[in-house]
């Protein structure tokens, strides 16, 4: 089975010990027995016999268990007097029969799990339960057979029942942790109402091609990118943009896959293949993030892998030690208590639950995290480097002035726009937009030199567009007498046939949230560095306006990496926030690379965190989330380790009854689950206002 397949219940990757089951006639993969159980309980509405099978297992197990407990209680309370030896013996036989059925009904799945793990050369918590319950059952059966009195079927019963219930509750917890991820992970499995010649049909989203007519019902999640043909509605695009305000949709406007339709019905013509939308890409990325183990998670896994065999050894040691000093049945019960009180689940659950929760909460605001490990790294960073363009400024500079030298202004604009329309750089886009009127067409043979400029054939001539340094490097002839440019503008030069013939002045405004962002980051005590490939004057102006003391300007991508390394040496691990093609290398070089949406594809590939377009204001919240997740994991790990040490010691000393031990074990898992889920409340309480609004919309 493919370990990267996601569990039908909790949506997490199933891992190597996943199980394949058929539910309602469809194949499903589950990561654990608990998830399988919980899925059946919640999705068994259809009248398929398999649906309720596992629930029947619990119910029938409970029936048997209650009978066993009832007879045991009666026996312990002395209902059968000392004279009733025959009656007591009869009750023992009844208990044996009931317990045998119970072993099959409730013990079966654990033994099967232990067997699967054993075949894979592993020992898991299933192994602990199986070994423990089989030993107690076998010993009691032998006692009944030999006519002796010490039977412990009630212990076996309660251990199995508590473990089954514990598994079920754990799975419920997992689902709650992953619930916020559901809209993300649903992307590839979504179904679309396609209007065809033969009427309307439900089709998987990946089979929908551009041009298909799709009907979207009120309240439905839109699964395709497209243009509205009919109908009016308001769409919640927070998953994509992090913005809570619903966007009005009317005929002619674009809808985006992943957004949630409001009260109106829409008829949409798909503009891209269903499998190629940003939503599907984000979904794939979230899935990958979940599959990647965090550093702490890997450490914990290694610990858990040693932990279970160690517990088995400890139990064997306890049995050997006590059997020499106490009756054998007491030694056996002590060893059983050791086996069942150990809780590798709480160790194993601590990290994944919290990181899943973190990834999910971020995804709800349109923020993508590459892995759970990113959250750990983010919690550790000591400084932040920011790119100016697109991060602190609009990232959409406007052309303010075109100066020509030996050509007309429209000629300059036509050549420049022709080259620029081949690039995704913000400056290039602004120039392309400004030159659209000149309708020059797209240049051919375009080559981009990141952070410097473009060359190619525009209007049939070899042309170039870029910074003064770039033009000089190309050894193009540069006129010296340009008219004065507006203050703080970015200057881009355009030329053709070996000579610079025009200068375009562009200016970029600060984002409205930039000042607040800088203030929030400074309040967290993080030293800030502004890095830009832009001109010194423009960068200085922005840095002064925002109150950032450290800034570097006119940097090539490699220089940015160097500046970042310097900053890291001085202040410790640094996160780089950037945007645009020329930030790719520096994002990759940073401890954590944070790309602000709309970033060119290379930047996204090398980024660990992707924020939605113009949403750099969410950065402090992400840092807060990371700190919260790390604190939650640490507290849970400390709790789980402390619990195991104390409980194992008590059990090994013979101070714990196995039934209490099993109860403690189930309780400790629940505590970890509960604590992890509670962490969510802590994060949401401090969510930024926009994100808080998303929550209330979702809750409503």
């Amino acid at each position, binding site marked *: 089975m493919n370990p990267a397949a996601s569990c039908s219940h909790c949506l997490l990757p199933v891992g190597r010990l996943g199980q394949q089951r058929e539910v309602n006639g469809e194949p499903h993969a589950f990561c654990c027995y608990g998830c399988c159980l919980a899925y059946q309980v919640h999705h068994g509405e259809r009248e398929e016999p398999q649906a309720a099978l596992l629930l*029947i297992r619990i*119910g029938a197990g409970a029936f048997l268990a*209650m009978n066993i407990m009832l007879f045991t*209680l009666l026996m312990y309370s002395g209902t059968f007097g000392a004279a009733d030896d025959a009656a007591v013996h009869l009750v023992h036989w009844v208990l044996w029969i009931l317990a045998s059925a119970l072993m099959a009904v409730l013990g079966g799945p654990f033994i099967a799990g232990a067997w699967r793990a054993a075949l894979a050369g592993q020992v898991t918590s299933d192994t602990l339960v199986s070994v423990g319950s089989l030993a107690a059952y076998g010993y009691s059966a032998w006692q009944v057979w030999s006519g002796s009195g010490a039977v412990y079927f009630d212990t076996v019963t309660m251990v199995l029942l508590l473990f089954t219930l514990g598994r079920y509750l754990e799975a419920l917890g997992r689902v709650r942790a992953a619930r916020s991820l559901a809209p993300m992970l649903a992307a590839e499995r979504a179904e679309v109402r396609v209007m065809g010649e033969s009427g309307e049909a439900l089709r998987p989203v990946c089979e929908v091609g551009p041009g298909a007519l799709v009907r979207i019902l009120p309240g439905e999640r839109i699964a395709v990118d497209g243009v509205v043909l009919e109908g009016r509605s308001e769409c919640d695009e927070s998953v994509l943009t992090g913005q809570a305000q619903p966007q009005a949709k009317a005929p002619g406007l674009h809808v985006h896959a992943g957004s949630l339709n409001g009260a109106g019905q829409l008829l949409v013509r798909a503009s891209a293949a269903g499998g190629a939308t940003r939503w599907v890409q984000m979904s794939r990325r979230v899935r990958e993030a979940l599959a990647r183990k965090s550093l702490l998670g890997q450490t914990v896994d290694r610990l858990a892998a040693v932990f279970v065999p160690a517990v088995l050894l400890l139990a064997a040691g306890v049995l050997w030690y006590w059997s020499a000093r106490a009756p054998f049945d007491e030694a056996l019960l002590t060893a059983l208590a050791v086996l069942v009180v150990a809780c590798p689940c709480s160790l194993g659950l601590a990290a994944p639950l919290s990181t899943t929760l973190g990834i999910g909460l971020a995804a709800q605001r349109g923020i993508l995290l590459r892995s759970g490990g990113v959250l750990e790294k983010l919690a550790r960073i000591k400084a932040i480097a920011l790119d100016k363009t697109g991060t602190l400024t609009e990232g959409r500079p406007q052309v303010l002035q075109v100066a020509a030298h030996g050509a007309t202004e429209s000629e300059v604009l036509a050549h420049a726009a022709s080259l620029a329309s081949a690039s995704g750089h913000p400056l290039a886009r602004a120039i392309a937009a400004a030159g659209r009127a000149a309708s020059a067409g797209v240049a051919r043979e375009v080559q981009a030199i990141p952070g410097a400029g473009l060359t190619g054939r525009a209007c049939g001539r070899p042309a170039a567009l870029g910074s003064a340094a770039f033009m000089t490097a190309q050894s193009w002839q540069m006129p010296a007498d340009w008219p004065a440019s507006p203050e703080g503008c970015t200057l881009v030069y355009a030329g053709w046939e070996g000579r610079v013939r025009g200068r375009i002045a562009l200016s970029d405004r600060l984002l409205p949230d930039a000042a607040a962002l800088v203030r929030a980051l400074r309040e967290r005590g993080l030293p800030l560095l502004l890095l830009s490939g832009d001109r010194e004057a423009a960068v200085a102006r922005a840095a002064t306006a925002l109150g950032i003391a450290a800034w570097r300007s006119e940097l090539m991508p490699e220089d940015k990496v160097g500046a970042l390394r310097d900053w890291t040496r001085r202040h410790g691990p640094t996160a780089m926030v950037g945007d645009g093609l020329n930030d790719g290398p520096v994002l990759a070089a940073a401890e954590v690379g944070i790309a602000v949406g709309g970033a060119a594809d290379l930047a996204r590939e090398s980024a660990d965190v992707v924020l939605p377009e113009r949403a750099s204001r969410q950065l402090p919240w992400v840092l807060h989330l990371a700190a919260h997740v790390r604190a939650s994991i640490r507290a849970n790990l400390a709790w789980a380790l402390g619990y195991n040490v104390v409980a194992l010691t008590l059990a090994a000393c013979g101070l714990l009854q196995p039934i209490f031990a099993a109860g403690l074990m189930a309780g400790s898992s629940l505590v970890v689950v509960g604590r992890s889920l509670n962490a969510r409340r802590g994060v949401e309480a401090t969510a930024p206002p926009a994100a808080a609004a998303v929550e209330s919309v979702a809750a409503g």
Partner: protein
Amino acid sequence: MLEYLLISLAGLAGSMHCVGMCGGFACILGRDRRGRAATLARHLTYNLGRVTTYCFLGAAAGALGVMMSGGVTGLAQRTLAAGSGLLMLYFGLQFLGLWRDAARSVPGPGGEALAGALRQLVRAPGVGAPLALGALNGFLPCPLVYAFLAQAVASGGSLPGVLVMAAFGLGTFPAMLAMGGVGLWLRRGAERGGVVVVSASAGALLARPDWRQMSVRIAGGFIVLLGVITLARGVLPMDAHLHGL
């Protein structure tokens, strides 16, 4: 013996209260395709599961009582009896209509989840399903069960505890079986097309509000009576003339 009879009667009258929740399960548990005997077996299995849960709870409550009081006699036992009696009076008076809130108590989030899960068991075929349904059904929150569990705590042992709850469970048997029968009748009626008439008359028979209210009050009366007896055991002098009970 009289006490157990009273409990059964309280169960019988009180089971009209069950019609609302548990009755729904019994009603849709339906018919077995293999015939009338199999159908009866299905409903008996369901009720067996339910009563087993009650008995288990009774045994546990009885054992808990002994653990708390340390024996069948003595001051601790008398205090326990008085406490249980008061608790029973509280539940009984609710059924009588003096406090309306708790008798109408809807299941909490846990109970709702349990009820939701049970709904899926109802339609599953096989012997296991009705058994599991019954066994889990017994755990649904119910003030009637609480009242008798209070009595079981004061009953002075596991066996008397089991007997209290068994008597109660047997008392609820007829109504629950009848609900199953009505369910079948309704379905047959539906097959013949006489849905409206049949369901109306069946509904009138077992679920008429005034009938239900009256029988619930009768149950409340029994519980109050039993509560008074239990309370008396704790409060009155040892030699009071309650040996017959």
